[in-house]
């Protein structure tokens, strides 16, 4: 008797879990399905689940529906530039906050915390005006410069640096290592997990960023992929959903590929972003 009810419970549990997977993963399969449907299939009711003959041509259509090579290039340039600049600025700052005692340390560090909490939604109006004054709205800079200081990164990296045992640094000093060498031969390798997490978070948030580039770009030639894809909706109207979804795949695919290969690392990184 006990065995039977246990069995039913287990089966129900499995079915529920499959349902959960379906709810969260299905929409991504759905994009693929729609992206391969014919114009007629997209506009029939009830909806077509599986296209009869996959229309790979939709991807070509989507790619030609806008300057997608430019969008894609912009997205890549922006991401690479942001992450590079953030690293160059963050590492010395985190090192100083972790290793040195100086008068204004607490005040300056609380500024970092404030920067961490203040959302771009508060700052975008003045920054937009500023970028306009500087004549940068037709360049990629408004999408890069405002993110030069990664406050979260400074915070996390500082914690890692502080956890490096004092003895190790002293051992390196005794080994006649210069200050710079201590940083890149000892501290940075020891903070690798933190750096990987920071790069991951930066990548996910800036690759996906929509609001900021929407505001900060006046011309198509500086728009990133997200804005380009969103614009498909208006250029393709509400009819050619197959083209829109094919375009959508340009945006989803890179992240999805990274996720499939590094899901363990990604899940772990986000799991511990909560509280320390």
């Amino acid at each position, binding site marked *: 008797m006990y065995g039977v009810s246990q069995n039913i419970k287990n089966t129900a549990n499995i079915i529920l879990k499959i349902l959960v997977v379906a709810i969260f993963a299905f929409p991504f399969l759905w994009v693929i399905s729609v992206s391969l449907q014919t114009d007629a299939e997209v506009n029939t009711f009830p909806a077509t689940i599986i296209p009869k003959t996959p229309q790979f041509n939709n991807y070509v259509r989507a790619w030609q529906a806008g300057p997608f090579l430019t969008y894609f290039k912009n997205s890549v340039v922006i991401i690479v530039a942001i992450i590079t600049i953030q690293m160059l600025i963050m590492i010395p700052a985190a090192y100083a906050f972790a290793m040195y005692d100086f008068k204004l340390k607490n005040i300056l560090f609380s500024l970092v915390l404030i920067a961490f909490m203040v959302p771009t939604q508060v700052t975008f109006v003045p920054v937009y005006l500023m970028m306009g004054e500087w004549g940068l709205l037709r360049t990629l800079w408004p999408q890069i410069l405002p993110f030069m200081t990664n406050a979260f990164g400074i915070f996390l990296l500082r914690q890692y640096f502080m956890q490096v*045992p004092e*003895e*190790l640094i*002293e051992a390196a*000093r*005794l*080994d*006649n*290592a210069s200050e710079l060498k201590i940083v890149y031969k*000892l501290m940075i390798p020891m903070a690798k997990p933190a750096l990987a997490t920071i790069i991951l978070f930066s990548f996910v948030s800036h690759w996906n960023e929509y609001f900021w580039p929407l505001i900060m770009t006046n011309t198509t030639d500086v728009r990133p992929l997200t804005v380009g894809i969103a614009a498909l909706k208006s250029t393709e109207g509400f009819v050619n959903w197959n083209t829109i979804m094919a375009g959508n795949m340009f945006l989803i695919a890179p992240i999805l590929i990274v996720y499939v290969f590094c899901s363990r690392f990604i899940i772990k990184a986000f799991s511990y972003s909560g509280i320390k």
Partner: protein
Amino acid sequence: MAKIEFRNVTKAFDKNVVIKDLNLEIEDGSFTVLVGPSGCGKTTLLRMIAGIGPQTSGQVLIDGVDVSNVPPGKRKVAMVFQNYAIYPTMTVKENIEFGLKNNKVPKEQREKLINETASKVGLTEYLNRKPSQLSGGQRQRVALARAMVKNPSVFLMDEPLSNLDAKLRVQMRVELIELHNKLKTTFVYVTHDQVEAMSMADTIVLMNEGKIQQKASPEVMYKDPDNLFAARFIGSPPMNVCNLDHKGNKFGFRPERVDITDEYVNDTAFIMEGVVVTREMLGHETIYSVRNEEGITVTVKRLDDKWRMDQKVFVSVKDIKDIYFFGKDGQRIRENDNDYAYCINQLRGVKNEEN
């Protein structure tokens, strides 16, 4: 090869003065052990030699040269840290190589030195491993190799064996002594364990609360302590200390110098009647505590184990030379001191009172 000197050295952390006006000379080529209870300033002293925790005032000299302005990497000293401080992100080889590279030693010479050192400490097979894949003993050897490979003129070691298990500790002790015999460089070794100090040192520097209590060879340290602290710190179990009078003078004797009998013995320097209250069998020897009616307890270390709990016995010290006297300031009162006669008289008084 180097001699180290401290001249009027003071070290303070913020307002907390840890070491005050310390003077010390560590002879060239000696195996000097700094020993003392935890927190007495041993590590602080060692770090001043290394230059990683410079003195607040005073001078530290290596080979007669004031090194106050010489950075740690240029002092020709090597240090083995208590927790080894092995670089976790580098392989064993890279760990050993790091200092050489920083000192711009050419590649071939580096390879040669690394291989020599690795074989000396038995790490040849482990050169390409990461520290996390090594046992405690092996890590210890990496730390040692990293120090040795630089061919320093001073070896500093901060409780290097305290993280090893008892057996390995004894083995490493022997190896370090052998290493010192081979290298003949100055070793400054820190420990809180007097057994380690006694077995390894040719000179012991005993410290307490930032002050040097005594600097002497292990034999002198044991046989002729300068003060109550040294007398109690060296030797296990520690020396028995009793009040000599009501003015604060004291006398002491080592547990291994005490006889136990079931009858009163004549012609002793000290004798006391009491009962056995504890008895610890350690195998080859037995440690007893004997307590008299006034509550004075004497610890006795004997090779025989025939005395039982609650048995009524006499404990005695035969030779007056085995009795040490200390003034109320804790300083030793020796035979040629003025108060010695007084002490002897007092001791007789104590003995008479006992009967």
